[in-house]
């Protein structure tokens, strides 16, 4: 089965629409959403509704820190994220808030673990930025493959039976066989706010039979997403960073 995975959608409608369309075209049969549906972007209402519909059709959806912050006004974030999340609260109805509040922080099935951030403490929202974070995350699970987002930059880590770590910046659209003899941590790039210097929306496809991961990029109307952020009076940097993918 071909699973499409999406992380850090961040209320970016043009980006998520482009990824969904492309993944469907590529034959994805199942969707896994790794959290942060809202925050930063201008379409939180649409994003939560879309995710709710996908879950109703069988998709897995995980809680992200921005989704969690919607219902927790005491959570402190950086100035831009804070401004965006306060604006977001006003855009979501009670049913949408209720949907976000009940999302799980981790789901494990068939030796695949889905989380938003580092897996040893999934509700502490720790970034996986190097091999020590990745190793802590993999040590905390027996899953063959862990999928997470949160850092907005794609990466692939593995842990061998002898305890050695490998780290790799994946090449887009080249499948990598995740050998069963070691554990793997797939860090997805962001759908709605890439920070690896490439403004194209990031997602991934996982083939459960071949155990192959393919990191994908979808070009989308970045100008339009930026225009909506400006139009809604959100911090200007949130629009500008989309254009450069930083």
């Amino acid at each position: 089965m071909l699973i499409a995975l999406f992380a850090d959608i961040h209320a970016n409608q043009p980006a998520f629409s482009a990824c969904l369309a492309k993944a469907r075209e590529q034959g994805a049969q199942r969707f896994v959403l790794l959290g942060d549906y809202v925050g930063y972007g201008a379409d939180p209402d649409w994003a939560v509704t879309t995710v709710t519909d996908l879950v109703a059709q069988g998709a897995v959806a995980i809680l992200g820190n921005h989704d969690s912050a919607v219902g927790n006004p005491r959570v402190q974030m950086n100035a831009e994220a804070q401004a965006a999340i306060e604006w977001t609260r006003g855009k979501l109805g009670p049913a949408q808030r209720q949907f976000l509040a009940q999302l799980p922080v981790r789901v494990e099935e068939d030796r695949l673990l889905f989380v938003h951030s580092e897996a040893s403490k999934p509700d502490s929202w720790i970034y996986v930025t190097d091999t020590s974070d990745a190793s802590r995350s993999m040590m905390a699970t027996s899953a063959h493959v862990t999928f997470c987002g949160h850092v907005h930059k794609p990466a692939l880590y593995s842990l061998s039976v002898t305890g050695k770590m490998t780290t790799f910046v994946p090449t887009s659209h080249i499948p990598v066989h995740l050998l069963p003899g070691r554990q793997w941590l797939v860090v997805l790039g962001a759908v709605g706010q890439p920070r690896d210097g490439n403004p194209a929306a990031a997602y991934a496809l996982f083939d459960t039979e071949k155990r192959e991961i393919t990191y994908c990029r979808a070009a989308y109307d970045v100008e339009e997403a930026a225009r909506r952020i400006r139009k809604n009076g959100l911090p200007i940097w949130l629009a500008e960073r989309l254009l450069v993918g930083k």
Partner: protein
Amino acid sequence: MTQPSLEPGSMLDGFLIEDAIHRGGMATLFNVSRADNPMPMVMKIPRIGEGEDPAAIVSFEMEQMIMPRLTGVHVATFVAAGDFGAAQPYIVMERIAGEPLLARLPELPMPYGEAVAIAEKIAAALADLHRQHVIHHDIKPSNIMFRPTGEAVILDMGLACSDQLPDLMQEEFRLPFGTAPYMAPERLLGARDDPRSDLFALGVLLYFFTTGVRPFGETETMYGMRRRLWRDPVPPRKLKPDYPPWLQEIVLRCLEIEPAWRYPTAEQLSFDLAHPAQVKLTTRSERLKRDPLTTVLRRRFNKDLTRPRGKPTLAAHLASAPILAVAIDLSEGSPALNDELRTTAGRILATLPSARLACLNVLKLGRITIDKTLDEHGHNKHVDRLVALRHWAEPLKLEEHRLTVHVLEAIDPASAVLEFAEASRVNHILIGARRNSVLRKLLGSVSAKVAAEAACTVTVVRCNAAAGQMPADIVTEDADQPIHSG
């Protein structure tokens, strides 16, 4: 987990195990067959278990990742794999008939021509491997075989790496893995991302096959291996006075300590091996002694030389050093087109300092007539053309080693250009197109055929005509009409 029996006659995933053909330190090879596949096949089983080298596992994992991605005549075709999640890990691949190159060691030193022909085939195979984003890191006689059709096949991807895959060996082992006599100096510093490491290994092989001596001995100690970071090998001509200078030039260029001083790509090395007369000789070709002690000491204590540095990706490296071929029409009718071709070639060469240019001209043979080597004034036509090609290229001011000139004798110019491009692994052809030519209407367009049939990129160059005006070409139906492009 119980290990299935691997005795001859037993079955594994539908493969019938026959006789064991090789038991090595890392793996065992069995002949296998399968009812639904007539291909001769071998199964590789890694040595894993108590007391075995963990490198065997990791190198087998690398091979499992890389082999299914490789295609073409220069590798053994991948058939199937069972990985460490299954009861028995294995890889099944095509069996290549015959003996590996190792079997020919008793014949060393070989005649120069024979060794060069072997090296040229290996260079072509390496070019194909590098194009597929894979660096082999263990080029040596036991990993090379030849198909009945002549192409070299590179075996054993256990130490290979790809810039499109995680490098499992890099993180696993701090010491470099490989075969000591063939290991490039930068490998000793931990660099695994430079395709020119394979060219160094091929240089070692060619040195060994032509002199009978390994250039860096057979030392296996780390210090012994590290000496090659500052000590150059004895020049082959010191060992064999009849050693051709052009061959020494090629061998010593492959064995340069600094990867940037070697051939930039396997294609370019293969090109020189195929065109000995065109090899540009430098002081390397004349050397009879190793570098003086002062030079060696400077290298020994120069931290810059013994420290690896960042490099572009494999694909970017290959793309920066293409072989360009420009097909030039020397007929008097097209000086403007030839200028335009030169301008276009100059633009490409200016941005790529490692690119090289092969200038081609076709000396057209008559289909029926018996061709004379001399023209009506008694000049040698072939030599005249070579001179004219050099004259054409002169304004480009290319360094000697970046330029070669070739006069191809053929009945059909387009086929001659295509054959040259294929044999010399040309990456990009520049060819002029003529408009409104009577000959073109009668015989078809050379540039159109080249553009349609070439395996590489083709740029068709045209003169910019004034608006609404087509250049009128002067056409003479001469039997030895040079290449008429378009």
